[in-house]
């Protein structure tokens, strides 16, 4: 991911991730739309195949930003900062998708698009923090100070990810608890639904990897232009 000289074009891995992700996207959609309906929610439960991978990839992206922000502070290499930036931006896209699909899912099931319950509130804060990350980057002109300040937000902001994930367990909420519970390892889902969900998770992960590499390359080209 980190090369000494900046190439003008995406490398083979970037193309492979993006190509495979885009190729498998229709297949993921087909699996989601052919998965059985839920006994209580009917076809509405299928929004899950977009909602859950979106939220997970958002969490993962912010974790990668956290990791590369730490690396940047220790090694002071701008390449780490560019990966942190790229991951935060793609993370906002995925988290935005999770928020929008969640609202569309909430209206017919809960009865409202939005309510200030713990999971929704903590996720809204999480989203706002990473919007703030980009506002901060835009406000600082000195490149080194900008990278350091952004790294601080990338590290401190990550605390919201476990809070958002655990909010359904820590507080009384309207949002149901995890169907694939990483804290207990229990899965509350029929196998054919789980298959469709995991396949879409794979597709989203491929797209995430491809887009982050592409975005980091764009950031590198921007930096080169800024220096010149």
């Amino acid at each position: 991911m980190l090369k000494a000289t900046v190439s003008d074009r995406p490398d083979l891995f970037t193309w492979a991730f993006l190509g495979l992700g885009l190729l498998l996207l229709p297949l993921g959609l087909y699996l989601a739309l052919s998965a059985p309906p839920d006994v209580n929610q009917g076809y509405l439960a299928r929004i899950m195949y977009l909602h859950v991978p979106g939220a997970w990839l958002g969490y993962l992206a912010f974790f990668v930003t956290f990791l590369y922000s730490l690396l940047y502070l220790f090694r002071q290499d701008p390449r780490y900062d560019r990966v942190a930036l790229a991951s935060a931006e793609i993370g906002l896209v995925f988290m935005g998708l999770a928020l929008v699909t969640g609202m569309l899912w909430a209206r017919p099931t809960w009865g409202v698009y939005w309510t200030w319950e713990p999971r929704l509130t903590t996720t809204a804060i999480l989203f706002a923090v990473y919007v703030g990350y980009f506002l901060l980057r835009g406000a600082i002109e000195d490149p080194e100070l900008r990278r350091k300040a952004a790294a601080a937000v990338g590290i401190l902001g990550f605390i919201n990810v476990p809070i958002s994930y655990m909010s359904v367990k820590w507080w009384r909420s309207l949002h149901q608890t995890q169907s694939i519970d990483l804290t207990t390892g229990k899965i509350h889902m029929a196998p054919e639904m789980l298959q469709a969900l995991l396949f879409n998770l794979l597709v989203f992960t491929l797209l995430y990897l491809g887009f982050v590499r592409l975005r980091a390359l764009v950031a590198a080209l921007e930096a080169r232009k800024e220096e010149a």
Partner: protein
Amino acid sequence: MKAKYLVGVLVILGALAYMIFGGLGRNLVYFLTPSEYLQDQAKYQNRPVRLGGLVKEGTVQYDKDRLELRFVLTDGVAEVPVLHRGTPPGMFKEGQGVVVEGRFGEGVFQGSNLLVKHSETYQPPKEGWTPEDVRKLIEEAK
């Protein structure tokens, strides 16, 4: 250009502070259970609150003409009668977990907003059912 971004940062920080100190603080307890509510009834009198619990089996009465939904909210210990004006949401049924926003008055809890919880378990309907069967069932239930 720079001032514009700084204003943006300030707006975001302000919104965050509001959410954390105003909104989130209140929302840490998203709803009260009927027992908690009845214990401290004087405190919540004439104040909008959220009550959460299960719809007690056999207590749902819905007046289609007047759009009045009556049911009893229970947490297994205490019970609160609820009157909600409006059509019940699609997934509202007996035994379901619900959250009602409203206030107490005239002997019943007057709900202004009815939210229906759903479980984290996803299961297809009985074996051998085609999506068309389910579609028919859902349409008949309406």
